[in-house]
């Protein structure tokens, strides 16, 4: 079931960067790609509990700040050790300058 929530304003996220969004006891990561698209994933690395929002966005990769594990934040695909489990992604849309994600 769809459940769209407002995560942030468009301007809250720099280009090629990520911010943290907490909602209902869950943590998400909101990304803005170099070509100005928005994406959302779970906020924690699947390897160990580290906030991906403290990591580094490079092109379509988010690198975890703790062990440098890499994911494709568009697809959630884990790109190799030390991350082996894919990241959950969420649908995103932009409406009236707000970034909305479907956490349903």
């Amino acid at each position: 079931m769809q459940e769209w929530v407002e995560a942030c304003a468009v301007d809250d996220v720099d280009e090629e960067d990520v911010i943290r969004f907490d909602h209902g006891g869950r943590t998400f990561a909101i990304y803005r790609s170099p070509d100005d698209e928005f994406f959302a994933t779970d906020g924690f690395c699947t390897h160990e509990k580290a906030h991906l929002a403290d990591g580094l966005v490079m092109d379509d990769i988010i690198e975890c700040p703790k062990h440098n594990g890499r994911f494709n934040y568009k697809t959630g695909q884990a790109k190799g050790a030390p991350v082996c489990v894919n990241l959950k992604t969420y649908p995103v849309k932009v409406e009236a300058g707000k970034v909305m994600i479907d956490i349903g």
Partner: protein
Amino acid sequence: MTMTTTGTKRDYSLVGESTRLAIETGLASAEWYHTDVPRKVMKELMQRCDGPAIRDSVIWISAILGSAAGIIWFWGTWWVVPFMFVYGVLYGSSSDSRWHECGHGTAFRTRWMNDVVYHIASFMLMRNPVQWRWSHARHHTDTIIVGRDAEIAVMRPPDLIKAALAFTGILDFRYSLPTLVRQAFGKLSDDEKSYIPEMEQHKAVIAARWHIAVYVATIAVAIALGSWIPLMLIGLPRLYGTWHMVTTGLLQHIGLADNVTDHRLNTRTVYMNPISRFIYWNMNYHVEHHMFPMVPYHALPRLHELVKHDLPEPNPSMWHAYREVWPVLLRQLKYEDYFLKRELPPTAKPYRGEFHDLDITAAAAE
């Protein structure tokens, strides 16, 4: 200077009593202290580029090939000694920092460049590239947490003979080669299985087989040529060139606290000369590296300037650091809980109880 004599016996196995205690008390996979650095500044520091590592790798590989040529050319004369000195350090010591930085994926921006250098350096070090990638991840999760960290170089009470022999590479060689042979036969130890995920374990076996195959080929070439030169160039530099890696690497954590979750307490930054910093790829800024492992080696001096107000004052030299450590090691022979607690500058946030379970007012030498 105070100390305690509680007589704690540490179990350094990764599947033993200390492991259970570390997990139960929350020391394992804990939240660690970080100096505040604004996101924009950190983002800038974390930026990757290929330029510095390509430059350094060209110098590194050129020096390796040049000194190897010198060894071959001057073999059988005393002139071979300086070339072996250079080649040995480049092969047996600087490979450690290349392995380390490329393992983190921070040296180059381009992933395959990190991977290529990582595998070459792992081979030079006789380290299984799969096993050590995971052991190092654990080292960063649980730095010097007894029963969790697979890379504690000097355990307590310290074995000083073993530490001294480490400079010769003999013990490491004696451990690394049989380990690779065992792994090549498909056998991983319980400790290795504790930090290598099951789905990755077969890769460790394959990597070990490749390494052993190259060593067997090298021995075959040496026998066919009736010459020691192939072995002097491949394998044996792990013995005669490892001293610089040990000299710099031991200082990372030796004599400092264990079982704490603040890198300022268990990790050391040491100012070093430019040659050692090239060989070591700036890992002398080790507190900074542990706090922010995303920052590439070439940005660590900048990071150091930004956070040094919050860190213990660095040792001004390796000599100074070893002079500081030596009496601590001697004391630990009798009182293994004893450690060196380094002073924070007045500008630093204090060591905070909630970031570690150890009572740092006890067992500490200030």
